[in-house]
């Protein structure tokens, strides 16, 4: 069983993680440990393995070598372990991936009702609570495609939160949004961070990173190149590739 108390055990421990796509070596022996309540921001150039890494954490990708331990449970071929981990790890995707044939409310209720066996009334109450939290309670009866991109992404965050996960993964949550909608999503994520959620975010929103990150991870070529506090990372990085990347991202 996954323990819910926050004794010293880390939320996530990755050791020597290897991932291949055919012969392409996508992740090269990654090591990472995340404490409970810690907020990690992962950045790096496209193709550096950021998404692959966080998709390994809930087994959307199968790793080929090394060890992943989530909340004390090892992620391996054991289906029970996979289910257990997926229940406790929420994920938000770049393209929202809402279920287009269900209303916003149904999107939020379906998994708590089926996976957590919650009665309908309770699931609906929880769903409305989290829709309130992401500031779109009035959209509950609409269908996803009737909403703007920013609203859809906030629904996706609410949907993940309805499972009351202990860890949240964000895979470039604002990359597919029109610029004026980015901040409404980031605001929700900042609030979530301030409430102590364990978060691993792949994002290029450096302003957000500076505000909430406890630790910055810079990846390149399937490797973690640099790990540093945001202060250090943005102002005095010793790494050549990090500085080059930052100058490209922050250049304008």
């Amino acid at each position, binding site marked *: 069983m996954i323990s819910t108390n926050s004794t010293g055990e880390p939320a996530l421990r990755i050791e020597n993680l290897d991932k291949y796509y055919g012969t392409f070596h996508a992740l090269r022996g990654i090591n990472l440990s995340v404490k409970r309540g810690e907020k990690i921001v992962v950045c790096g150039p496209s193709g550096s393995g950021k998404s692959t890494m966080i998709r390994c954490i809930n087994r*959307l990708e199968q790793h080929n070598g090394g060890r992943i331990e989530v909340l004390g449970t090892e992620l391996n071929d054991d289906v029970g372990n996979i289910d257990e981990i*997926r229940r406790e790890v929420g994920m938000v995707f770049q393209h929202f991936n809402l279920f287009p044939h269900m209303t916003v409310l*149904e999107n939020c*209720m379906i998994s708590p009702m089926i996976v957590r066996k919650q009665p309908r009334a309770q699931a609906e109450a929880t769903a409305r609570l989290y829709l309130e939290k992401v500031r779109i309670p009035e959209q509950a009866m609409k269908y996803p495609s009737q909403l703007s991109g920013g609203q859809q992404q906030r629904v996706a965050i609410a949907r993940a939160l309805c499972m009351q996960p202990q860890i949240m993964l964000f895979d470039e949550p604002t990359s597919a949004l029109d610029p004026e909608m980015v901040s409404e999503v980031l605001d929700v994520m900042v609030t979530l961070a301030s409430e102590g959620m364990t978060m691993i975010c792949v994002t290029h929103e450096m302003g957000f990173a500076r505000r909430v990150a406890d630790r910055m991870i810079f990846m390149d070529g399937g490797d973690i190149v640099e790990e540093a506090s945001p202060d250090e990372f943005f102002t005095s990085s010793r790494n050549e590739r990090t500085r080059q990347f930052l100058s490209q991202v922050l250049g304008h």
Partner: protein
Amino acid sequence: MVSLLRNQKVRNALLQVLYVGSIAAMVLAGIVIARRNLADQGITSGFDFLFKSTGWDVNFSLLPATANDPYWWYFLIGIINTLFLGSVGLILATIVGTIVGLARTSSNDLARLLGRTYVDIFRNIPLILQVFFWYAIITHLPTPRSAHEAWGFLLTSRGLYIPFPNVGSAAFAAATLAVIAAIVLPAWLGRTSRLAQPIGQRRTIQFAAAAAALACAAIILAIGRMPDTPLLDFPALQGLNLRGGLRIPPEFATLAIAIAIYGGSYIAEIVRGGFKAVGTGQVEAALSLGLSPWRVFTLVRLPLALRAMLPILANQYVWLMKATTMGIAVGFTDFFMIVALTINHSGQTLEAIGILMAGFLAINLSLAAVFNRINKAIALKGNQLRG
């Protein structure tokens, strides 16, 4: 003049006039020629023949039929036979197609290979050859005396005999309607109450509706049961022949099988396409929420695939409905064969073919209309393709 011809609007108008004019000319010429030919042969045109008795028999009918019945009654029999064969064929083809289509999208190599082989074989052999093939197999089954038997079912060259409830035909028809209602009603209720009651309550209502309809069916069967007979009538040998049960004639069985197998290969491809059209994003989101692969299938993949499939499926159904005209190849009295026999016996070629065309138009346009309704009802709401 030249500059006028260069004007786009003038050009389009001229083309339209030319087009409509030539079609009108062709139709007119056809009518004139037909009238002259008919007059030469001494045939009177008109629909009076509909009320004369036919003088010949049909080998399969769901309604009472004798040689004294008028032509219009026979046409009705033909339409009902076609609808019956069509419905049975479409349902079977859908079942076959779904199984094969799922096999083709499966992650299992063997299932994929089998599915692909099936589609490649049955999609590429003309339907009429397949009809003859199944007819040859069925008519070479053993005679009633040495029939294959399993669970009260008898396979013979005279057809397939199945156990049948001992009820009157009216009661049986009513019970069938009730069973159909048990399937359609929950789906319909699911749609209309969708916004009002989220998931849980809706299920209860749907379940109650289905149960009520099935109870109706059971009551109808109990009331319509013939006095002092067992509930099920099993076929059995009496002398040289089989008595009891329900006989499915070889002609009907042949066509139903042929349409199921042939149509199934096309529907399999539609099913495969439908599942391919479901975004991997939605599937990944469902998995990341902890839903099991089976739940991901029933809650996300299937409902979304169905929406992608439906328009093409409707098209295929219309096509298969027309394939029932293969009845004439093996002597099943479908609508087309009744019309062909009518032409032979009455000589009213144009009228009979007119009725045939009108009948098929009515059947297929209704089918298309029903599917358009369903399609609109379950279409994804909203106007953005995002998500």
